[in-house]
């Protein structure tokens, strides 16, 4: 993951991307116990979001560093890294509010727990619900905190359904 952090910081410094933050399972692990995951997901703000091949500059930069595409990801050391362009106002805000963490001496931007939970709520697969429960159990987010953020992004109904189904209240 240190290799991934270095690559992302270099990409940022070179102006290939405007910003980035890890999200998904690897980000979740800052707060919860380790979880099984196949890849590392990275939210990216690209310089030219109107391009059809929006990820092409990222892939070119990675190729120049010796990292090749592998399926929908780019293999960086042990991790296939999946670059995900911002896809909603929620992800735009999550990126803007991301923490800068220290990963063994290398800075690494990471989406905060509350945004991880609400992004998971917006996606809504079984594993996303498990992520919300794990974050709640870790105490890194509160039901009220999720409710407030969900309401700001039009996800109050989804949150209500989640509470009814999983929190017994």
């Amino acid at each position, binding site marked *: 993951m240190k290799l991934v952090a270095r690559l992302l910081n270099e990409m940022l410094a070179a102006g290939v991307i405007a910003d980035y933050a890890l999200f998904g399972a690897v980000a979740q692990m800052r707060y919860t*116990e*380790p979880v099984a995951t196949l890849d590392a997901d990275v939210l990216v703000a690209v310089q030219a979001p109107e391009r059809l091949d929006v990820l092409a500059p990222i892939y070119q930069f990675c190729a120049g560093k010796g990292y090749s595409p*592998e399926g929908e990801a780019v293999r960086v050391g042990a991790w296939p890294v999946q670059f995900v362009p911002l896809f909603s106002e929620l992800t735009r805000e999550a990126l803007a509010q991301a923490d800068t963490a220290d990963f063994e001496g290398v800075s690494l931007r990471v989406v905060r727990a509350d945004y991880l939970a609400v992004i998971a709520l917006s996606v809504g697969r079984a594993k996303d619900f498990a992520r919300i429960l794990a974050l709640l159990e870790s105490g890194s987010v509160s039901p009220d905190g999720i409710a407030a953020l969900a309401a700001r992004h039009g996800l109050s109904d989804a949150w209500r359904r989640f509470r009814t189904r999983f929190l017994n209240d």
Partner: protein
Amino acid sequence: MTDTRELFECQAAWQAGRRQLSWPEKVRMAEAIRESLVRLRNTRPIDPKTDSAERLKAAPRSPSQS
């Protein structure tokens, strides 16, 4: 029944303990879990409709990529 309850309590305590590890340590553990996950996934029968992307992700690495 009591044995089962104790077993679950031990497991819960162990899981809670793992939550306290540093983030890099947890990521290293996930890397180790990932290798097993990849091997397990590669034993599944192929369903071309749903599995192509997942199987590409799970493709075994060549030695030069490790």
